[in-house]
């Protein structure tokens, strides 16, 4: 049983540059994290594309959670269940009240994915280190190869709630039948048009058809990232998602990519930074849609629509 329940909440990073975002408490800066390392109630989690990167050096005290070997169910194409999640977090020294700060390689691509999965389990206080590993490293901040020795703690078994922020294929099909459904395709332009079925320079994961879901706007995920690896200021993000693409924060939105990882990053941008209330990540994404029988697909540069395909 845990004794610390309510009193130990860690105040958000008050950096003025985060204040403009819809949910500024979801980001911490490298300066903030450096000052708060080791504080009771805070656990830093590294989540990378490369399964060995943590072992080469990580933020002192950070633990590792791998998207593939820890968060995915080893058999079914799904995320782990409540029991496995409780065991995973308990072993990492995380309780339900812990403030989690996630960071990782590739502009926090996988860290944002982990954050989205943690949100499926309703973990309340989970934040992202703005700029991720690259920014921490560029600033010459400390790394260690020491793995923290952790005592097992109690994390409750919580049933995963997929209804709010996760979309299945049937949800997307039903969504397409609503009036002007709002979808964001965050893959590369070549994947969007159907010129190719996988990411440039990435392994072919197998999709039989190329193209995009009818009506989807193309906004490659990395457009949300600034030069220093952090997120762009809110006005720049709005210029892309709202002004250029016409996406409306007040409408239900579905984001997708190839397996749901890049779209987790965009989910974070739309929901936490731009305040879209109802955003779902369709994690089946193109590796499901591009293989499914008789689902509508549009090729080429225009979003198209179900009726006009």
């Amino acid at each position, binding site marked *: 049983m845990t004794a610390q329940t309510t009193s130990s909440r860690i105040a958000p990073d008050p950096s003025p540059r985060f204040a403009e975002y819809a949910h500024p408490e979801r980001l911490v800066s490298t300066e903030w994290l450096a000052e708060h390392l080791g504080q009771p109630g805070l656990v830093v989690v590294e989540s990378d*594309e*490369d*399964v*060995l*990167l943590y*072992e*080469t050096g990580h933020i002192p005290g950070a633990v590792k959670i*791998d998207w*593939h*070997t820890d968060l995915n169910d*080893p058999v079914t194409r799904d995320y782990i269940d409540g029991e496995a999640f409780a065991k995973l977090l308990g072993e990492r020294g995380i309780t339900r009240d812990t403030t989690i700060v996630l960071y990782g*390689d590739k502009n926090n691509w996988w860290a944002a994915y982990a954050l989205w999965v943690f949100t499926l389990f309703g973990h309340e206080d989970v934040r992202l280190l703005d700029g991720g590993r690259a920014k921490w490293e560029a600033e010459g901040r400390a790394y260690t190869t020491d793995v923290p020795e952790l005592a097992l703690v109690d994390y409750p078994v919580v049933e995963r709630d997929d209804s709010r922020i996760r979309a299945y294929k049937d949800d997307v099909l039903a969504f397409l039948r609503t009036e002007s459904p709002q979808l964001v395709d965050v893959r590369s332009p070549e994947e969007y048009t159907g010129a190719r079925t996988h990411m440039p*320079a*990435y*392994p*072919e*994961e197998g999709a039989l058809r190329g193209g995009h879901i009818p009506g989807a706007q193309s906004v490659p995920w990395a457009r949300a990232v600034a030069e220093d690896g952090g997120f762009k200021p809110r006005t720049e993000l709005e210029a892309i998602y709202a002004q250029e693409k016409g996406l409306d924060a007040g409408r239900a939105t579905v984001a997708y990519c190839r397996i749901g990882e890049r779209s987790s990053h965009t989910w974070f941008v739309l929901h936490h930074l731009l305040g879209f209330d109802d955003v779902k990540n369709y994690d089946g994404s193109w590796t499901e849609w591009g293989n499914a029988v008789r689902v509508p697909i549009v090729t080429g540069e225009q979003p198209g629509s179900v009726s006009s395909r």
Partner: protein
Amino acid sequence: MSTTDLPPKLAAVVDDFDAVGERERLQLLLEFSEGLPELPERYTQHPELLEPVPECQSPVFVVTELEDADHATPPLARIVRVFASAPREAPTTRGFAGILCEGLDGLPAGELLAVPDDFCDRLGLGRAVSPLRMRGMSGMLGRIKRQVRERTAA
């Protein structure tokens, strides 16, 4: 894990991985990553001579050479040199490259071509690293073998 059909150095690598638990296998892979030899200067100066491996998630390049270029030795008996490069921030991919360089460099071409295509699955890394990531290593082996096949056929 059976190693009787593998060249001795590659068999030794499989035995090393077999001898340790799953957690230590990652550590061992990290050691191979750190042990990947630097590219010879003729390739650092001419990266266009290296072949990219798109099956890997990170930029990795492989190149092979046949020794004894005077053709006095039958092609399949000629010694193959294997070189690879991968960035430091991609240690898993570097580890794969390190294993293949360690196990394949210096083999006669015929023996290298006889390495089973499923060799990478015998390292027992599927669970610790994930099958998807392991595909990158198989892609690297496939490209090395294809290069050697082309060079010995010439």
